[in-house]
């Protein structure tokens, strides 16, 4: 296995990319073949991600499975440098799981199926890439690669929402998402260049994260630079993490996207943003981070409350989940901003937990929409009667999201609050209030649309297909498993958190 570790991270990026490239040559008019091919690629990715996660030695910690390839030499010194730390490892696993689930769920895509999977696999490759590279150039490269296919994925295969008085078209959602995310990358790009210039002035121009961190330790990156670079990273990556007030792309984008894309997007893509804040902002500009973290935790708290209240006032099932994602990413941001080992570990666990549960929710809402052609919770009712399994899975995900003990959300949120209580008490209290609002909208939704009397107009609905049931069951099992036995994840996360906080 030692040799395998040398290339496993490279394979993680290469397999979905090669899959996307090969899928281009599939016949155009055989959607089922394209789907099956994508499943094959996603299964390989999933297996690889499990192996990588298991092979990560949490006892040793640090950056593992390192492998560097020269890419552009002197004078800019860019290397394709792979390496995994304790924060990246669980997220790699998350992407492996959600990618497979999203591909399976996308059975219903029958128009230009081949193109859909080409883009979806490219997106998956981008996400894997961000989690496993140690060079800012390639981190940014893969970050953009993950964002780029979203425009077409939403614009071509998405759906528009009619609000009665106005129409939110999929084109609108796609363009808004793309422009806001790329506007965020402007800030990231400038930040990266600023760090590069600092390293160049110190006589060792590099984009390597570890070298830049060492440079920062030696005092070569001035406090002033760190002070202005950190907000660039925090805002730039924060846009993708749904940071208030730059979250507005997220509900519109999630709602307009087809089910599989919503799963990937809310499930893993938003985590790229939070991961970037830790991996780039915190580690490379710690002095700036220390100064700006109170602001970030304030915004994160607004995220929690604002997202929850917005979800409360939505009737469209997908918009409820969309805003609930904004609210839950608030916990992640709060946890990061505590700069406290428990809070930060909670944030990373929350990323994993939220990734699974939100993907599950989108999958189940997609199944309902597929059959009822409507997502309005005021019109849908008594779904349990015809769609029992779907209702059950959705309810579990909902309970996980409101923090029911025994499910993964509880532990993550508990840890975030623990961290926050020790550092920013008033904000932690507000965060808990946000969790209470979550309970209101989730339970109300369950009561209104899923349980209770059913109109005869819903009698034609059929329950989830075997594929949907399989995905749902697997995700529910993961939610429960992490809820009752989080140790396998937490011990990996803790090593990562330790080294991330070592610089403070």
């Amino acid at each position, binding site marked *: 296995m030692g040799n395998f570790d040398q290339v496993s991270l490279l394979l993680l990026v290469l397999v979905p990319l090669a899959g996307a490239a090969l899928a281009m040559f599939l016949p155009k008019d055989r959607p089922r073949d394209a789907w099956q091919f994508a499943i094959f690629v996603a299964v390989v990715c999933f297996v690889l991600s499990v192996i990588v996660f298991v092979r990560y030695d949490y006892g040793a910690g640090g950056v593992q499975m390192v492998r560097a390839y020269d890419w552009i030499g002197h*004078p800019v010194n860019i290397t394709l440098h792979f390496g995994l730390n304790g924060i990246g490892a669980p997220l790699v696993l998350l992407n492996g799981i959600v990618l497979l689930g999203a591909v399976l769920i996308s059975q219903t895509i029958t128009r230009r199926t081949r193109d859909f999977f080409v883009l979806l696999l490219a997106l998956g490759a981008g996400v894997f890439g961000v989690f496993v590279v140690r060079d800012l150039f390639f981190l940014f490269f893969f970050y953009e690669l993950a964002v780029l296919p979203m425009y077409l994925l939403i614009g071509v295969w998405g759906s528009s929402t009619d609000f009665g008085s106005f129409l939110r078209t999929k084109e609108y959602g796609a363009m808004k998402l793309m*422009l806001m995310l790329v506007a965020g990358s402007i800030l990231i790009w400038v930040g990266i260049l600023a760090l590069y210039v600092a390293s*160049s002035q110190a006589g060792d121009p590099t984009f390597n994260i570890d070298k830049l961190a060492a440079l920062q330790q030696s005092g070569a990156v001035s406090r002033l630079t760190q002070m202005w670079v950190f907000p660039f990273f925090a805002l730039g990556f924060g846009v993708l993490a749904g940071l208030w007030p730059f979250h507005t792309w997220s509900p519109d984008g999630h709602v307009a996207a087809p089910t599989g894309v919503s799963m990937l997007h809310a499930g893993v893509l938003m985590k790229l943003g939070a991961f970037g804040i830790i991996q780039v902002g915190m580690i490379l500009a710690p002095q700036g981070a220390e100064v700006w973290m109170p602001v970030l935790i304030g915004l994160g708290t607004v995220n929690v409350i604002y997202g929850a209240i917005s979800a409360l006032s939505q009737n469209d099932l997908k918009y409820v989940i969309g805003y609930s994602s904004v609210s839950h990413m608030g916990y992640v941001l709060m946890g990061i901003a505590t700069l406290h080992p428990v809070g930060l570990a909670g944030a990373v666990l929350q990323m994993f937990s939220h990734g699974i549960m939100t993907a599950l929710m989108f999958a189940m809402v997609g199944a309902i929409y597929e059959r009822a052609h409507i997502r309005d919770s005021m019109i849908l009712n008594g779904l349990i009667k015809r769609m029992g399994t779907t209702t059950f899975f959705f309810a579990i995900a909902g309970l996980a999201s409101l923090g029911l003990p025994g499910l993964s959300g509880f532990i993550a949120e508990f840890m975030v609050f623990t961290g926050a209580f020790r550092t920013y008490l008033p904000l932690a209290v507000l965060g808990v209030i946000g969790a209470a609002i979550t309970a209101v909208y989730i339970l109300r939704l369950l009561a209104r649309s899923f349980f209770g009397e059913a109109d005869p107009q819903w009698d034609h609905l059929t329950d989830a297909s075997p594929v949907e049931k399989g995905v749902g069951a697997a995700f529910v099992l993961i939610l429960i498993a992490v809820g009752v036995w989080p140790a396998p994840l937490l011990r990996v996360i803790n090593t990562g958190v330790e080294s991330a906080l070592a610089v403070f």
Partner: protein
Amino acid sequence: MPIDYTANLHLLTPEFVLTALAFLVFTVDLFLPESRKEWLAGLSVVSLVAVMVIAILMRPSGSVELYGGLIVVDSFGLFFKIFFLAIGVGIIALSVEYGRDRFEYRGEFYGLLLFSILGMNLMAMSRELLTAYIALELLSFSLYVMVAYGLREARSNEAGIKYIIIGALSSAIMLYGLSNIYAALGTTFFAGIAEELASPGTVSPVLWVGVALLVVGLGFKLSAVPFHMWAPDAYEGAPLPVTAYLAIGSKAAAFALTLRLFAEAIVPAVDRWDEWQLVIAVLAAITMLVGNLVALAQRNLKRLMAYSSIGHVGYALAGIAVLGSDFALAAKSVVFYLVVYAVTNLVVFAGVTAYYNRTGQDNIADLAGLADRQPFVAAAIAIGLFSLAGLPIFAGFTAKFYLFAAVADGGFLWLAGVAIFASLISLYYYLQVLRQMYIERPPNPDHAGDGHELAEDHGEDHGHGDHEEPPVAPMPRPSLLLTATMSAGLLVVVWLGVYPAPLLGLIDAASAAIVPLG
């Protein structure tokens, strides 16, 4: 000291051969019947490749001067020669089908193309202002004719007239600038200018005026804002392959000349004269912002590409602005950017030409539903535009990252920030083209012009793709040659995006030849 004007003359063999072959094309044209004019395209491609081979075989070691220093043969010139000749091959590939259907006198077209490439080659080799000017005019005069080649099209004629008037104006301005420089310094050699500039003493206002006018003249040729106004009209009116040539070839040649001029005449005096950096930086910032902002409002594809190319000139100018800081890095990044820009634009223009040849349409809205009608053409244009916008895994991303890193490293982080912001703006209008091709429905052959149907279609939910597709207006396949051009271009775009090291190695050697001594 008498100068031996015939020394090393054999090193100019590629240029002599190119001239001879251009005349050969003109001559053969006289005897070929109309139905066999395609042969001339083949002959021109063979000529270009032959010249390429000769140029590589006869390359001297180090740099060798000819005509007492008017012209130099070095690896910088060689790199650009190969680059220009390759561009020529690409443009011919774009012209064959287009010319067959729409040109009156195809034979001369290829001859003119060869002459313009000769002019470009000489621009990359000149070491003296007047020689550079004559080379530039050789390029410009060929282009004046080529722009107006759509003989029966009012648009093309109008473009030709505008182009020649503005071109003559800019040449006059440049010449006046040159005369002022000569009056102030008594020399027109790059090295001599550098020496005079670096020597202590008061700088006369005449010199200021001269250099300023020279920059203005170059600004016209590069179509840098505010000297860009000719570009959109010329691009829109010119036949498509000529539009591509304007966007790719004449820009690259003007930058080759600018690079050598700055490297050998101005950068050595940077200590005494570092304000020029700021001037160029501001020019670059305005160019990229105006080009990209005005592009937002365009409805015509060729105008869009014109403004987009103005934006790209801005990025490359940003690289010129930092030549004085870290010369090797800046020159390398500019040259790399030019190559990537040329290949990517060639792909886009090949796609647009393929579409135009079949439909005769060149508005953005006309592309609606192209992805359903001709998926490969749509994919080529889309990938080209993504690369121009600077998105990975395509060459544009690597080139922009490299260039902006050089700009930031040269002390102009704000300029890099402006450039990145301008890229965001450009993404928006590139996405508009993508949206037409991939998201909008193709025009329905049964309900042509029936707006009501479209509006209804809009609200419908496309998530359930299993409704029957509306019938799609058929579009014939693009010609084999254009398909091959697009495929080859796409391969290069992806290759340079994921593994640029070999090309960067070549560029390294090329730019090393013009490193200023000072």
